[in-house]
């Protein structure tokens, strides 16, 4: 798997997250560092933080070593940013708050050749592809459709208080509905979209990573 794949994302992560935030979907607080920006001595959110290279040509950031988690202070941030800039010259760097973890969900969108724009919801995170525990519907969807999708998951209990895990099903449903509405309104621009992972927590759901591909590649 090439890390600089010939396929290109339709937006850098920070651009897509700005769109999501505009839809009322929660994303981590962040600060974007353009190539010439100085590394700030302080941030409007607390350490530890994450630094990621935010570029439409980077499909698999983690595998490319373009993501650093758990940065503890400004000095470490300075060091990490310098190193990322040397390896990914010219790319912006997105500094984000480390979000409190929750139950990990994946929310995805794709354009089916027969049915048109479709939505996927499932168990997310690094095991998403291993378990393949996902459900699909055609857009548009209603809240009851999304509820039915969650009911279909083998891991549905994860969103229903399994072993004391507190995850707001309602918050996840709202993310799906808001993103679905945007995808449908922008169907000509969306080939595939991954919101993965979405941390589903007791009172909210936050999109930690997001990728968008244009239709020609999806």
């Amino acid at each position: 798997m090439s890390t600089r794949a010939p396929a290109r994302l339709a937006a850098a992560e920070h651009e897509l997250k700005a769109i999501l935030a505009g839809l009322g979907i929660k994303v981590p607080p962040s600060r974007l560092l353009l190539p010439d920006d100085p590394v700030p001595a302080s941030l409007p959110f607390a350490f530890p933080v994450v630094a990621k290279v935010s570029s439409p040509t980077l499909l698999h950031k983690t595998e490319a070593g373009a993501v650093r988690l758990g940065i503890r202070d400004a000095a470490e941030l300075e060091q990490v940013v310098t190193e990322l800039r040397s390896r990914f010259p010219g790319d912006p760097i997105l500094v984000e708050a480390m979000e409190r973890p929750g139950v990990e969900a994946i929310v995805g969108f794709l354009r089916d050749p027969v049915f048109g724009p479709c939505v996927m919801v499932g168990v997310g995170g690094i095991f998403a592809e291993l378990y393949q525990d996902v459900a699909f519907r055609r857009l548009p969807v209603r809240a009851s459709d999304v509820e039915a999708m969650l009911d279909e998951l083998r891991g549905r209990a994860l969103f229903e208080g399994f072993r004391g895990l507190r995850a707001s099903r309602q918050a996840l449903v709202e993310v799906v509905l808001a993103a679905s509405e945007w995808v449908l309104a922008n169907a000509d621009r969306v080939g595939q979209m991954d919101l993965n992972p979405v941390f589903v927590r007791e009172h909210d759901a936050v999109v930690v990573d997001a990728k968008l591909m244009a239709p020609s590649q999806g």
Partner: protein
Amino acid sequence: MIRSLLTPRSVAIVGASPNPDKIGHIILRHLLKGRARVYPVHPHATRVLDLPVWPSIEALPEPVDLAVLATPAATVPELVQQCVRRGVEVVIPIAGGFGETGEEGRELERRLRAIIQGSRTRILGPNTLGVLNPAYGLDTLFLPDDRLPRPGAGTVALISQSGAVGATLLSTAASMGVGVSAFIGMGNRLDIAEAELLQALGRPEDPTAVIGLYLESFADGPAFLEAARQLAGRKPVVLLKAGRTATGARAAALHTGSMAGPDQVVDGVLRQYGIWRVFDDLELVDTCLALALAPMPAPGARRVAVITCAGGQGVMLSDYIESTTRGVGLAMATFTEGTRARLREVLPSFASVANPVDLTGQASTAMYEQALQVVLEDPGVDAVLASVVLQLPFMSPEVLPAVARQARRYGKPVVAALVGVKDTQEPFRILNGLGVPTYPSLWRAVRSLAAILRYPAMAAAVASPADRPMVPR
């Protein structure tokens, strides 16, 4: 279109040869058993089966509703042209040799499309088995009726993209006594396709109660979904969608793409639009039969009572009903004390009065009917799986109408299983004819009962007041 397709007043059969081995001759023979006025058409013959033969479509004394073309592909464009000129409503070209064979065949189809464009003439097929409407006696199938048994009249409509699968469905339906309102072989779907047929058969005045389809692809996915959604909860749509493993040309760059096998998307979308999905031809016929005959229970009904005359059957049926792995994951009903007391009065002292009820080898016709009645009266029972062992010495064929009588009385779904019986057709015809879906296998009976109990919830989810609109904006 649908009237001319299924209840034509007049039918022309082109290629009506005097040679009894020719397809046109076979179809003519079938057509003559029905109610439509039949016109054999052949360029050279003068008489066939004692009927005068007409030299061409254009020479016919009336513009027929339906024309069946039993001639080779190359002759079809000219014949369809004549049909358009003569104002024929529906044409069924039987022959293969069109789009399924390659570029030349696709070119033939493009020509046909151009010929009917803007006219009132519609095409079913080409490359199709044809249509069957038992109640009207319309039979354009080229498979001789002594080789492919035809089902009788009923309320199940069957639509098939494949002729061979269509024939299998018909043969299964015929052997089980499943009555059919229409069979339509769509073939290459050059013009008439599934969405339009769903709409037509879904009209309230159409005798169809359930529509079963075999599809390998969707002619127009969104149109099909929309048509099916309109029918949810009213006329169930049951689909066998083959081609599940076909590798979609989906780029797998993102997680969503890599996890969206073509079949997984289909699976979710079908449920969303209230389409009941099945996975083999037997299940298609079984489910159509169940949904056509049984009363529709309230969404959420899931408590099943079992009546058997054999312990082994009770054990297996309980597994099939309750297990979520090789079963349907429904619940075995718990009887009230009153029900158990009444069963004790009816049954032999050594019989089981818990669920499953085991009438033992002493079971008689009267005992069976009484036990069924007691169980149906229990408020904790949503449905009954009645396994009738006709081979027992005290059982008589009278038990079949008795089961149907009780089933009708309480309006709860009753599904019957008759296994290992000597006559593999007549008892099924009797019970299905009396409105009790009946199967020659315990598993098929349970699977069908599960469809009856689960369909209403799926349909209700589709029809429920929209918290958000589902129509694309």
